[in-house]
């Protein structure tokens, strides 16, 4: 594989990893606070739909983005209500949200646009445009560094840079601030937080809301950054991959970046090499397409060490039976 190919694969990796990264960090906030979330997929889908719809109608990508975040927050609110206030089963709530988003997006989309759930294609103002970093043109001819800067680092759209910035921001928030301390504590031992005079409910809702915002960004990036509009079921399982990445990352922000990049990379490689000729046998395309999932299983099988989830994760906080 030559250098240019590598750069291109990595470039593709960055793009493919971005929605995963948003969703993975979203899950990180929620799960670090003790609220498990398999509804990432549904929140992303809802966000992708509404951001696509609003961007199409207004022609303004920012309005679209905020609308997407709003849709995702609404789903997050349902999840919060079910798993925090009403102490329901968090997995079930997640499943319900996935179905709800899958149905509602098409139902409303068809009702509004009559395009079978698709939103109208976005024109320039309705989409995130690539941002060319300073000196990208000038740097391009420089060997090695040039392509890395001008092709790999420069030329992505706003959400990509935001996603990368979210990683140190998350780490900082989690490990350096009061909120982060409380959030991590709530996922480990909510009673400790409660007896320290801090509301478990408030922290968990805050975490779920942050999760909603980040899923909203993930969805908005899908519909208005990577694609030019919403298409039915366009998340195509990315929420589940983000969840796997989260576990792989052991619920830590920098590891999350690594995990999402790995999954993005696997997909990029699969795209680039649809089938691999091993001389004796040709690995069929189906195998290459299943490879990310197979590798996920292999990784989860514990060959990279066991992931211990937040101790209070998945359990509603019950003071009085």
């Amino acid at each position: 594989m030559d250098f240019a190919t590598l750069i291109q694969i990595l470039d593709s990796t960055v793009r493919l990893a971005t929605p995963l990264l948003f969703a993975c960090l979203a899950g990180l906030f929620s799960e670090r606070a003790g609220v498990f979330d398999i509804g990432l997929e549904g929140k992303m889908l809802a966000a992708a739909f509404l951001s696509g719809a609003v961007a199409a109608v207004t022609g303004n990508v920012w309005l679209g983005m905020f609308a997407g975040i709003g849709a995702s927050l609404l789903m997050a609110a349902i999840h919060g209500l079910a798993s925090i206030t009403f102490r329901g089963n968090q997995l079930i709530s997640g499943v319900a949200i996935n179905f709800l988003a899958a149905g509602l997006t098409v139902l409303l989309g068809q009702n509004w646009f009559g395009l079978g759930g698709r939103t109208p294609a976005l024109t320039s103002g309705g989409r995130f445009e690539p941002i060319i970093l300073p000196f990208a043109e000038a740097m391009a001819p420089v060997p090695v560094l040039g392509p890395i800067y001008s092709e790999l680092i420069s030329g992505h759209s706003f959400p990509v840079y935001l996603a990368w910035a979210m990683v140190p921001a998350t780490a900082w928030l989690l490990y350096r601030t009061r909120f982060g301390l409380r959030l991590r504590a709530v996922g480990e031992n909510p009673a400790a937080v409660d007896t320290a005079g801090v509301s478990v409910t408030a922290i968990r809702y805050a975490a779920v809301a942050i999760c909603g915002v980040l899923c909203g960004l993930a969805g908005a990036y899908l519909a208005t950054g990577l694609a030019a509009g919403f298409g039915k079921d366009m998340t195509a399982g990315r929420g589940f991959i983000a969840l796997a990445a989260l576990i792989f990352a052991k619920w830590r922000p920098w590891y999350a970046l690594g995990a999402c990049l790995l999954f993005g990379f696997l997909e990029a490689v699969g795209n680039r090499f649809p089938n691999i000729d091993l001389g004796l046998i040709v690995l069929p395309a189906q195998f290459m397409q299943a490879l990310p999932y197979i590798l996920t299983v292999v990784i989860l099988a514990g060959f990279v060490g066991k992931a211990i989830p937040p101790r209070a994760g998945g359990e509603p906080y019950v003071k009085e039976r």
Partner: protein
Amino acid sequence: MTVQANAGRPDSAAPPAPPAIELRGISKAFGPVQANKDISIRVARGSIHGIIGENGAGKSTLMSILYGFYRADSGEILIGGQPTAIPDSQAAIRAGIGMVFQHFKLVQNFTVLENVILGAEGGAMLRGAMTRARQSLLDLARDYELDVNPDAVVEDLSVGHQQRVEILKALYRQADILILDEPTGVLTPPEADQLFRILRGLKDQGKTVILITHKLREIMEITDTVSVMRRGEMVATVKTAETGPEQLAELMVGRKVLLRVEKRPATPGRPVLEVENLTLRDGQGVERLRGISLSIRAGEILGIAGVAGNGQSELLEVLGGYARASGSVRLNGQPLDLSGREDAATRRAQGIGHVPEDRQARGLIMDFSAWENAAFGYHNAPEFQKSNILMDNDAIRADTVSKMERYDVRPPIPTLAAKNFSGGNQQKIVVAREMDRNPDLLLIGQPTRGVDIGAIEFIHKQIVALRDAGKAVLLVSVELDEIMSLSDRIAVMFDGRIMGERDPATTDERDLGLLMAGVVQ
């Protein structure tokens, strides 16, 4: 029992100031359970106030209400004479109340410092808070002999140190009133002494301490006043100096209690259990058992004393068949496989009965009915099978009815779920199940933990009866009184080792206490 001469100043000189705390007519129900009924109590400023009562009497509930963890259904709280609403713990902390819970409320994988500042960070950023807290921990350590490494991760600390962290948490929040809920249950006698020194020091600084305990000895030793609770009600508040253990016990239970077990001298027979050089490492590779050797003969009770967490649980787990270990164990002369190939079912078939330490987490399935629980672990027994595949539920139910009658389980309803029985009756179900099969060896952990006095008497009698029937009993308990009164021989465990063996007739609590703290004479 030793009372250090005048460690606490007599209060008699104190002027009649408003009490530090006054509770008026507090009531609290958990669903259908009335945990507190119209409770009123006054706690004088600068005193140590004891609260005693049977399990489930409502002590922890009352204190949790004071600390804002629960909300009372009705009643009033006065702090320093001022009516104060305490809707949550934040309000309690503001009112100067700190609480050390029976089950610690610490974040296990946080450092001491992180735990201490949690909820009292004093700013949105952690850095400043960390520095300030580090300094004030040093000060507190100096003032009250409360040493802990601020950077240690809590899960690596001993229980005693974890408790200090809890106290530090309260003091860091500048608590004037400190509530301790059964603080000594998990401590060695020397650690308990150390705690009492700290409490007296706090009292000297003018702080008010409320101490919940089951141990009458401690009440007599350290408190100024004592309140007694029974079934959710406050039955009496008396000056400690004006009462004695017998009167308190009677107030607690509502009748005269015999605090001793009647038994004849043992007539030990052949060895039933022989353990040699038993060693166990946990998941992290820490040695939990370090070369344990012991033996028990038929018709003998071996009591294992020790502070919780010194390997007793692991010993029971290995012998019960659900932990791996190395070394050798022989039962009736036959070696047992400790490699994990044999499980708890095998052990039962080999003649080992096992009343686990934690009946709610291990001994019972709380959602299962009594009859399902009565076969738990013996569900493979031939008499409970209808065919190769089907179980004979009718046979199990019939058997349960008979056990419930003989072991006085109340109410005797086999279809009631285990969670709907009281703690004592849950324990009776487990005891009945394990003893009724006449095991050659009975492992019994914390047989009376959380069990009321009546049930304690009954269970103790059953244990002695089993011994008299020529069976071997391995008794593990953190209650020294229980160990002393039941055992024929006592072994003391500390840090995964047997520190020594004693004859109950010739030893005393001080002697055992030193062994339990790891001090070898």
